[in-house]
């Protein structure tokens, strides 16, 4: 074990860095997608509601590994071969980010929808009765209250997404699991390699969830 850490430690830490980069990029776009589809699902417009519901159902109904293969291999094949005339290549990072963003975004949109609906309808009515527009009422009154109730679920989703980056090892992005496979192949020390990888995930996620708890407590100050 010491030999693995000595020889491959730096490599594994770098791979963890790429895991975090992928997770952060994915989460960033997931937040945008989640907010967009979350709001589409609560506005008073049937078409918007249906569009949002279809998006969530499709993403939720497809395993992420299938989504990963579809985005990484399927989409370039569609443009380059089926339609033709394109010369599209997706890097594993681009495809991985898209995959995480779509997957996490769908779940985020459900969290955001539930959060908005948990705010008493009277809050929106009171804001509108003062002459504020729907979007101002949403931004200044409803969303700030919704976000507080959403935070535990969002943190949970962040952690799930961080772990889901490991699935993207299948499209060859050199994140932690992908790199660890190489280490195992070089050393044949399966037990030690995967124990180290497991502990690395555990440390990062524990730090993340502790920080999140702290933020959550900070946000709840002043709230009864």
């Amino acid at each position: 074990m010491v030999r693995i850490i000595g020889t491959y430690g730096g490599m594994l830490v770098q791979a963890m860095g790429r895991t975090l980069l992928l997770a952060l990029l994915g989460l960033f776009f997931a937040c945008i997608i989640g907010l967009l589809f979350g709001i589409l699902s609560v506005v008073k417009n049937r078409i918007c509601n249906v569009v949002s519901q279809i998006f969530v159902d499709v993403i939720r109904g497809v395993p992420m590994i299938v989504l990963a293969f579809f985005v990484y291999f399927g989409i370039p094949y569609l443009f380059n071969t089926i339609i033709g005339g394109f010369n599209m290549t997706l890097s594993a990072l681009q495809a991985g980010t898209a995959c995480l963003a779509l997957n996490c975004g769908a779940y985020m949109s459900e969290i955001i929808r539930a959060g908005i609906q948990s705010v008493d309808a009277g809050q929106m009515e009171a804001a509108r009765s003062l002459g504020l527009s729907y979007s101002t009422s949403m931004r200044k009154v409803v969303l700030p209250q919704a976000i507080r109730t959403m935070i535990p679920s969002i943190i949970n989703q962040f952690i799930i997404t961080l772990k889901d980056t490991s699935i993207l090892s299948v499209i060859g992005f050199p994140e932690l699991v992908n790199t660890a496979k190489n280490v195992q192949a070089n050393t044949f020390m399966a037990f030690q390699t995967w124990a180290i990888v497991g502990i690395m995930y555990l440390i990062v996620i524990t730090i993340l969830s502790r920080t999140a708890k702290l933020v959550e407590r900070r946000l709840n100050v002043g709230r009864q």
Partner: protein
Amino acid sequence: MGVSDEREIKIKTVGLKKSFGDLEVLKEISVDVKEGEVVVVIGPSGSGKSTFLRCLNRLEEASGGKIIVDGCDITARKVDLNKVRENIGMVFQHFNLFNNLNVMENMTLAPVQLKKCSQAEAKNRAYEMLEKVGLSEKSAAYPSQLSGGQKQRVAIARALCMQPRIMLFDEPTSALDPEMVGEVLAVMKELASEGMTMVIVTHEMGFAREVADRVIFMDGGYIIEEGTPDELLSNPKEERTKSFLDKVL
């Protein structure tokens, strides 16, 4: 009561109808409210009185008929609803103070967002209004730190910060503990004495008798009877009004 006929009509509904699916809640409601008039709407629950009130600023969309506020048909398609609502304050049964904002922020949010005045002017007016409702020391408190009566008084002050010409009250004391009803009614009484045009849905018959210029009794989506408090509360003509008043008085 001396309601002179020269006074301008502030709210006029003509054949106002509202249905929720197959359920007809309002059936041809026609009412005039004159400037400075205090109209109290009473009736059993499910009579449509709250729905009627909520139609007046289009929190509920009318299914038929017209609503004319300050001479402008607010059911018209191209009307700027937000502009209309700036002039109609509303107070709710459950206060609906913005829980994420403190009292001062609750009161200045709309005036500042809608660029009615600067932050400083909005604050000054908010202090003025808080003083009026007797809560000037609560400007930094959050809604969760206030009692029900205080919340409702802040809600009234918040609506007044928009300097509305009409105030609508939807059962403003129904969610309050009995000992807090008085403080809210006192604020409303003061407002009435200053000449504010008010439409109030309430179960407070004593308040209606004391403050109302006119009382409207609604049942089953119809206006059954209307008149001065004396006429309607003491000598109702309609059987249904009598039986309702027998139960509540």
